[in-house]
């Protein structure tokens, strides 16, 4: 069994209640932090741990915290990004509904470290029952003196607010989230200024993912060095992976970063292998927006070395042969999956979720979706493939927020690795549009 940091107590009955969570050593980190440590010391521990943002970008969390501007007389805010809506990612949902106090505890310590007296948890609107769970947990923590005025007699005040979102993927982008939190239309802001300087209500703000914040209490209890000892290289600690698709055991797994991809896919502790009787065709390693790769390139990189579940190893080979760990939304496809149909499905999602603010993303996502729709339904032409590549290039990097990149990468990578399947769809429209028809020429693992 590998190290469990976040999910250690998840199977304990009643862990969602304050009493059970407290019995299991919960809120000890809050006591330690607010009574024995200065905010700077907390930031220092998190920096030492090397924990990287778990929302997808993988930016070191301690660094993000130290960038926070601290002008006199201006409030600072901590916002927890719980607007998890990337297709294939459902780890925060699991964490919040199973062990809500872990997030609340992390929020208290993080807010203390950043000097925020009012912090927000922005939860996607579809998860109304999770919002009720979190609100109940906050009430319990408040009753026990861990929240509210003068926490544990330290003189530190904190108010925690749970805010439901309206159900928009774009509000997971941090500046769109802040706009939405302010009650405006969830359009991403132009950067600079970054949220660390001008964020919520034009005040310095830190936006962190649920999983990132949930690691903080363990780091305070056990020290940043202990956290940094887990994992491999610059990918320290553990990561929650939402495994779905054609595997025997879909679910949320906590892995130690640096676990081999082969073990993650095939061991019974995790995914339990590809669906029995089928073979692996392709993998989306970190949520729908990362490049899709053939199964062979997921297990071994282009040089034939084993790939590991870590930020560095998965992105080895760049866009040509690599992918990304992203938010940890692992989706496996076996030989029955149609890559064209799947790419069209992803692009449909991005067309629907584009905010419509900047022209490349607004128009480009719709264009790609329509062309893919044509190819999928047997009305494509060979020039459409190059057209898709060109359109994706013109979106990538030219937009306000990363949604443009997220929409462009799956299409570009699917064509890069599965071009023959697209060509087969175009050249054999009658065959390809039959129900359940799948291209049989793919290299399987």
């Amino acid at each position, binding site marked *: 069994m590998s190290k469990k940091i976040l999910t250690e107590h998840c199977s304990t009955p009643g862990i969602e209640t304050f009493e059970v969570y407290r019995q299991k050593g919960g809120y000890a980190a809050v006591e330690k932090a607010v009574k024995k440590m200065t905010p700077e010391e907390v930031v220092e521990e998190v920096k030492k741990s090397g924990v990287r943002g778990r929302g997808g970008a993988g930016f070191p969390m301690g660094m993000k915290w130290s960038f926070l501007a601290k002008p006199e007389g201006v409030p600072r805010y901590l916002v927890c990004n719980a607007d998890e809506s990337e297709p294939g990612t459902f780890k925060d949902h699991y964490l919040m509904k199973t062990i809500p106090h872990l997030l609340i505890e992390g929020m208290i310590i993080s807010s203390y470290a950043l000097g925020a007296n009012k912090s927000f948890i922005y939860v996607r609107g579809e998860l109304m029952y999770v919002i009720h769970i979190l609100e109940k947990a906050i009430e319990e923590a408040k009753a026990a003196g861990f929240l509210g005025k003068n926490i544990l007699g330290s003189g530190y005040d904190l108010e925690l607010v749970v805010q439901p979102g309206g159900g928009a993927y*774009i509000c997971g982008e941090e500046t769109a989230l802040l706009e939405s939190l302010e009650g405006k239309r969830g359009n991403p802001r*132009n950067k600079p200024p970054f949220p660390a300087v001008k964020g919520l209500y034009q005040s310095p703000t830190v936006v962190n993912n649920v999983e990132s914040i949930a690691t903080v209490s363990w780091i305070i209890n056990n020290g940043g060095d202990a956290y940094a000892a887990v994992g491999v290289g610059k990918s320290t600690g553990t990561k929650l992976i939402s495994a779905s698709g054609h595997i025997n055991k879909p679910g949320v797994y906590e892995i130690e970063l640096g676990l081999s991809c082969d073990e993650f896919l095939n061991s019974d502790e995790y995914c339990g292998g590809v669906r029995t009787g089928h073979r692996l065709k392709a993998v989306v390693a970190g949520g729908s927006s990362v490049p899709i790769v053939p199964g062979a390139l997921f297990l071994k990189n282009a040089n034939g070395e084993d790939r590991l579940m870590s930020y560095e190893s998965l992105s080895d080979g760049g866009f040509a042969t690599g992918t990304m760990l992203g938010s940890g939304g692992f989706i496996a496809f076996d030989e029955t999956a149609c890559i064209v149909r799947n790419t069209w499905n992803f692009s449909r999602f991005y067309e629907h979720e584009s905010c*419509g*603010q900047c022209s490349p993303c*607004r128009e480009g996502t719709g264009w790609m979706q329509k062309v893919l729709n044509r190819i999928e339904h047997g009305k494509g032409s060979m020039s459409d493939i190059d057209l898709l590549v060109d359109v994706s290039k013109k979106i990538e990097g*030219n937009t*306000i927020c990363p949604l443009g990149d997220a929409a462009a990468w799956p299409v570009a990578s699917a064509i890069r690795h599965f071009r023959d399947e697209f060509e087969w769809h175009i050249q054999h429209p009658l065959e390809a549009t039959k129900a359940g028809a799948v291209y049989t020429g793919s290299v399987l693992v």
Partner: protein
Amino acid sequence: MEDIKPVMFKVTVDGVEVEVAPGTTIIQAARKIGPEVAPPAMCYYEPLKGSGGKCRACLVKVVAGSAKDPRPMPKLVASCITPVQDGMIVENFTSPQVVEARKGVVEFLLLNHPLDCPVCDQAGECHLQDFAFENGTSTTRYEEERRTFEKEDIGPYVQLHMTRCVLCYRCVYTADQITDGRVHGVMGRGDHAEISTYIGRAIDNDFSGNVIDVCPVGALTDKTYRFKNRVWFSKPVDAHCDCDKCCGNVQLWYRGDEVIRVTARKNEWGEVTAFICNTCRFEKKKTSDWVIEGPTKVNRASVISANKYGSNLIKKPDFALKLAESQFKNIDDSRPYVNDMSEIKQSEDYKVLKQINDSYFKK
């Protein structure tokens, strides 16, 4: 006492250096140099705070961030929202990457645009026409159906053509910053986002007409001017009046001696210099309402300048003559004449003409 010199930043755009105050954006620095290097802008509008960053027409390449840190910026940046640094080197029209990206932006903006210029009131003064003509290609690769919207009436003065909209948000900022209450905004997301009023309300406000002037395309047009004339057939003159609501400085657009349209004055970047009230814009359509100052200076390259104010007398620039000269070809008169020319060739007139002709086309 020593003079305190204000700190000025040196910026280079397309090889031309300019000194600007800190806090200036790249596009403003480029505009200071001149229209030759100024990036196009479809959404950025200097008088409107917060505008810009959306259309991506003004993307430029920063090849050196500053003198202190001369690393290039990894992505193309929107020049309208990126402040300059001392020693920054920017490539605009000289960068193939920028030219290519801009071609893409033109294509994206025209993707769902109806291209109904022949019936559009904005044609001739449309920023999208200029932008596409200067930076785009003449063909499209788009085969799909263009998006359409349900028609919506947003009031007695302003006509909304949502299909033409490029979602620049200028009218939203205008309503926020110029009028005393915004009733319209952007509804929906992605390529189905649309400008609309809140549950069918009419835009009714003393300064609401300004959304017509800020609209870069024909999405918001003047209902009192609809289908009356093409802009290049009308004559703009500067005029003013005493108005208790606004500055009263306007442009009158004449057809014959009839005022067919009143608009605010614009600078060379197409930005309104002073916003005007609806009374001036929609009600005062008689010459007697105004004090005429004189013809508006119109850019020589603009189609509006065609056939007026002695534009035929304007000396053509040298390069046009040189171009004509370089492409000139002698008429090949070795072809056999169809008619019998022998009689004509005998005439005195022909001989004179031939002489003149030969002297012109000497090799």
